């Protein structure tokens, strides 16, 4: 990451009056303190990460090498689960769905967030705090509530969206009946929920840009659009990449929205039109008791995909920084 933090050099311990042995002991404690307490401070994170992050990951890796029945026996089968995965049509289908929904949600979302952040960054804007808070509200709403409400909006028979579309002469759309419409509906939920969040992060990035750059540009006769294009955008690029990585991770794990959109059916549509990778993992790993090992392999595949996408982003940011 290119986000850098400046740390103050550790100030030398102030000399303390006292007898020699006391001073020595104090010195020792001081040294121990300096040397080990940082580890103590960060230990809680690593302990919790170990229990809830690392251990499950390793255990999942172990499971993925087995033919594993959730409530029964398991036997070691090596990488068979992974070789099966490569030729599994439904796995690739889920991958395509995940990337499709990801593209439909992330691209418009980031463009909108950039636009909104730029608006909120204007010094002339009134009631700034109100707008900044208001834009974040969708993110606070529970994802299940969002999915249920949007599920109702996108209903075939009595849904608000179809009702509105009927005024412009568009026939009833069976939103969960086709790929494009289901993807659009799910992407809409994601956009609604995360645009504000990304806006705030981008806004923070924009506020770190020195004002004199804009002043100098204004004196040279650059308009608002040119200022945005030539100053704001290059300067928020690191933040933008950060936001893209976050969105990638979130997008690859998309689960609740498509699940509730399809009435809780894990297949995600009659022909798996909107089954995401996380849903496929759940289907194999949790719903089907006897394919838990295969589900674990899907989980690791998701992990690898996320790592690859993050590396790609990382390479891009390194290159753009040069």
């Amino acid at each position, binding site marked *: 990451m290119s986000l850098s933090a400046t740390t103050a050099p550790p100030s030398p311990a102030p000399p303390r009056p006292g007898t020699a042995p006391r001073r020595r002991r104090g010195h020792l404690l001081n040294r121990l303190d300096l040397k080990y307490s940082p580890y103590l401070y960060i230990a809680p994170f690593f302990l919790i990460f170990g229990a809830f*992050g690392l251990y499950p990951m390793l255990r999942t890796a172990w499971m993925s090498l087995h033919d594993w029945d959730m409530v029964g026996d398991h036997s070691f089968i090596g990488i068979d689960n992974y070789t099966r995965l490569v030729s599994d049509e439904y796995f690739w289908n889920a991958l395509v769905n995940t990337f499709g929904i990801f593209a439909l949600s992330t691209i418009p979302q980031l463009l909108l967030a950039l636009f909104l952040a730029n608006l909120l960054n204007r010094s002339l804007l009134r009631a700034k705090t109100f707008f900044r808070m208001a834009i974040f509200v969708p993110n606070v709403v529970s994802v299940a509530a969002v999915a249920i409400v949007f*599920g109702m909006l996108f209903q075939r028979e009595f849904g608000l969206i179809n009702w509105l579309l009927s005024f412009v002469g568009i026939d009833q759309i069976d939103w969960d009946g086709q790929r494009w419409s289901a993807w659009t509906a799910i992407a809409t939920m994601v956009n609604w929920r995360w645009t504000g969040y990304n806006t705030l992060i981008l806004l923070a990035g924009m506020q770190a840009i020195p004002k004199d750059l804009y002043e100098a540009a204004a004196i040279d006769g650059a308009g608002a659009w040119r200022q945005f294009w030539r100053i704001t955008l290059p300067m928020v690029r690191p933040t933008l990449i950060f936001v893209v990585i976050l969105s990638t*991770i979130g997008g690859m*794990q998309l689960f609740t929205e498509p699940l509730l959109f399809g009435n809780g059916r894990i297949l995600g549509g009659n022909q798996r039109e909107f089954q995401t990778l996380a849903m496929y*993992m759940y289907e194999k790993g949790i719903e089907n008791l006897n394919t838990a090992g295969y589900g674990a392999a899907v989980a690791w595949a998701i992990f690898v995909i996320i790592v690859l996408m993050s590396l790609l982003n990382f390479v891009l940011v390194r290159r753009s920084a040069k």
Partner: protein
Amino acid sequence: MSLTTRRTRMAAAALAAITAVGGLAACGKDDDTSSEGGKPAKLVVDTFGEMGYDELVKQYEQQTGIKVELRKTAQLGEYRPKLVRYLATGKGAADVTALEEGILNEFKANPRNWVDLAPLVADHSTEYLPWKWELGKAPDGRLIGLPTDVGSLAVCYRKDLFEAAGLPTDRDQVSALWPDWNGFHEAGRKYKQGSGGKAFIDSVTAVSNGVLFQQGSDLFYDKENNIIADSSPAVKAAWETATSMVDISAKTATWSPEWSGGFKQGTFAATFCPSWMLGIVADNSGEANKGKWDVAAVPGGGGNWGGSWLAVPEQSAHQKEAAKLAEFLTNATSQVEAFKAKGPLPTNLEALKNEAFLSYTNEYFSGAPTGKIFGESVSKIEPVHLGPKHQAVKENALEPALRSFENGQASKEKAWEQFVKDAAIQGAF
């Protein structure tokens, strides 16, 4: 939030789920054995939906002095993952656990998780519907479930909509409209004509559900549990009958918002009702539609959708007492009590002949004699063999394929291909 914590949370969320480290979240089971004679101070019962045990449990407490805790879970969808967690981690399960048909079949594959009840209770083998009793046995012969209820089928129909479309409304006359599925289809077409093109039934999967269990032959598996989904005559019959009714279907998938809303809106005029469905129909239709619904016989005789058993997990600390409690909850008197309380249909032969059961009428459904109607259809249920992944094949292969066809996403041939392919995937065990 830093990237690392986000990624950690991702890893934690996604992978903790898959490894089911439920032991951390599973409720600790009180292992409180009181000192007197090894008699447990408390037994725990896990049920889903409404099984009508509230009063019965109190009776049992008075009779035996053993405290019984009833843990209810509303939705089967929430109930199953809990059970899986208990079994996978080896702790947390109740002493007596209700197992729904699909769950029981799947769990039979690992019978060692369940106690063999035969040595612990009296011989009841002749007191229940024979096929229901047999289904409670694991492949290795252990008796793992005592029968509770059965999902015998009937047809729920809207009298007011029938009348408006020029169909008879009296329940006997309505039943006479459809001695078989052709008659049902014919009635549906008449309704469509008479009502100006309105749909008659909720979905084609409701039809396939009905037909599937009337065939009395193997469904997705043969007796040796080989998958025969593509060649099974029963499946083919259900497929053909269901797909033929697409012209009178409202295309509302069961449990979808369109379906729930359809009861109130009159989107469809009839649906297939196991007795446990009556309460759901009433809830979805609302108080305003009370007395508009009635219950008629199902075309082609019997039919079955759902139904449960009571089992004792191997991890229970009080297996013997738990078996006794399960025995009590499934006896004839208890089954009649439960039916009167919440509607689950008895499987005990004596309970099915019980006067109080037979004379029971349902007020919401225009005073229909539901005890008599369902009691009669129970006797017509054809016993069938369900393989280990029956539920998965039905819900994740057959029904999606039918819906693909129903919604015009696939031709009949393509939909059948989809079913055959998915049945092989879902049915593997």
